[in-house]
């Protein structure tokens, strides 16, 4: 995991008890960390040097993390990961709507945070111009990426796991293309550490069980001989997400 130049991270949190050890940990992991104890301090730090990614605590006195996040995303086009104490879905949606790339819930596993940082940076390097929060539609099914909600043609919610969500997004981003297992694994690996060494096929078969009428004779996700899968339906992007 050695990089030519260290990745620069701006860490904004008013709580020194968390900020200092976290900065030390990230430094040990090879990141160049700059600390700020408030949104104001973060703004002045940004004037001096632009980091590669920002880690923001949401709850801070004065200007809060969400407001700073909006500024960073809109003015600086900077990848942002939010640190939040609440696990409520609404907080996550607000954060992602504002433009944050990801979020972690305190107390997080430091290793998971590092994995997320790498994943977010990888995604931002890919430079996907498509609107991130646009919804997907395929043959009546809809996927709202912000709420991570999949609905069938009747409008019934079909709960899926995070891994399945990522897998489906990977398919929906590349309809009718053959994607091999390694690439799929690369795109899907996220917070679930166990996914790193778990076969993609397992996830694919789980996803099939949820969206295929007959999972033994799949219609949407087809297995391609020679190692890979193909999403065999047309996908439409819906701006503004799906309406419930």
């Amino acid at each position, binding site marked *: 995991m050695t990089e030519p130049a260290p990745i620069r991270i701006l860490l904004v949190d008013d709580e020194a008890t968390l900020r200092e050890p976290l900065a030390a940990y990230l430094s040990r992991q090879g990141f160049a960390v700059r600390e700020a104890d408030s949104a104001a301090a973060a703004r002045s730090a940004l004037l001096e040097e632009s980091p590669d990614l920002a880690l923001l605590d949401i709850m801070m006195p004065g200007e809060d993390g969400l407001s700073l996040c909006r500024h960073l995303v809109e003015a600086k086009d900077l990848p942002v990961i939010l640190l939040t*104490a609440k696990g409520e879905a609404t907080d996550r949606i607000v954060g992602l709507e504002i433009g944050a790339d990801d979020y972690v819930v305190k107390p997080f596993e430091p290793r998971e945070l590092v994995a997320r940082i790498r994943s977010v940076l990888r995604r931002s390097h890919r430079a996907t111009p498509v609107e991130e929060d646009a919804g997907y539609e395929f043959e009546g099914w809809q996927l709202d990426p912000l709420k991570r*909600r999949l609905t069938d043609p009747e409008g019934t*919610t079909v*709960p*899926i*796991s995070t891994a399945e969500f990522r897998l489906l997004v990977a398919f929906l981003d590349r309809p009718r293309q053959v994607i091999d297992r390694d690439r799929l694994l690369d795109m899907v690996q996220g917070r679930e550490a166990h996914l790193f060494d778990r076969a993609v096929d397992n996830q694919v078969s789980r996803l099939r069980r*949820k969206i295929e009428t007959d999972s033994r004779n799949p219609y949407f996700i087809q297995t391609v001989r020679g190692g890979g899968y193909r999403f065999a339906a047309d996908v439409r992007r819906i701006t503004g997400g799906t309406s419930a």
Partner: protein
Amino acid sequence: MMRLWPRSLLGQVLLAVAAALLIAQTISAVLLYRSSEQRRESAILHSLAYRLESSQAERREAREHRFRRDDDIDSDDKRDMRSRENHDRRLPRALRLEITDSSPLADGEQRDLAREKALRTILTEEDARIGDLVVLSRDPHHDAAFARIAGTRFELPDGELVIAGLRLTDSDQWRVARVFARNGDQRALQTLVVQTAVLYLVLVGILALLLRRITRPLAALTNRVERFARSQDTEGQIEPTGPDDLRRLITAHNAMEARIAAMLDEKDVMLGAIGHDLKTPLAALRVRIESVEDEGERARMAAGIEDITRSLDDILSLARVGRASEPPERTDLGALAAAVVEEFEDMGQPVTLADGPRVVAPVHVTWARRALRNLVSNAVRYGGAAEVSLDREGNEAVLRVADHGPGIPADRIADMMEPFARGEASRNRETGGTGLGLTLARAIAEQHGGRLVLANRPEGGLVAELRLPME
């Protein structure tokens, strides 16, 4: 009988008023009927007496006939005026008084002793020298004199002839007087019925209007309370209407609602603050232990922090359940169960999902998932493995989690759903969890309008059922 008794306030009051009115009207009807019967009776007797005496009062009769030709003798008796219509069908003159040689009492006829006695009293007062007195009543169509004199051209309503025969002490001849008495007092009864009906309509109408003024705001308040019990927000409070007492009740209720909503909001803010204040230092601790060299030590510390976090999450969730910010969504429960089961599979735990029908119900996905996750994790913890199945029973979706563990003693089942209760088998924290799992699952079931049912399986082990309404 019980079904006839109305359940609503409006129905009960109307029924009570109707019953009271009926009793009052019946009493007055009986009194009225009895007094009119008495009047009728005395009119009949006086007519008879007058006719029998007419020879003694010839002068008077002559004078009367001069003035009121063809009129009934009792007509000059003011007291009897009102009851005229009861018996005063004008009988042909010849029938009113007849002089015969024999008693009018035919064989087999009953003497009307009560009337006889009353008539005797009257006649005695008039100084009649009574030799023999007979009173009887007879159907006019069976009366020979009536048939002879009146024939068929004389039509009478239902009734009877009251016939009195008098033989004076110094005479052999009978004087026979006839009076027609109509049956019953139907007219009075009819009036009474009409009167009662009108009273009913007016009273019940007015009462219904009045009561609606009371029951309508009451019904609105009831709906409101039910809604508030579900949503706990002050949106859509009702305006105070109706009588003052009700207005005050509604105003007081609105104030209470506002207070409850404010307290719940405060609670949410407070819980958010507690969560933040505790989770930030926990996060710091979690980061710090990464620098611990000893790997085993570090894993134990991480597990400790995870335990605290889980307890904290359970407590915060329990306090927040029922305050869902979004409406429930129609959800494929099969997919939901699969998602939960797969989480456990990923951790290498023996959890299976049985094939079942497709069941869709409106649920809060995150909460329902959490409830099921708690049940499965209990089954794994105490029963070693979990079998999850999904069924539809009537209007309920049933998520069933069964294990092969020791189960729970029957008398402890209810206790198990209380906060911080744990099975005896696991007093220690290692396997015991927080003790909030079932409490939370039950709270979530109730939040959805459903319930959590625990039961021992006959073949051993425990089965926990999450029953959620499908509509």
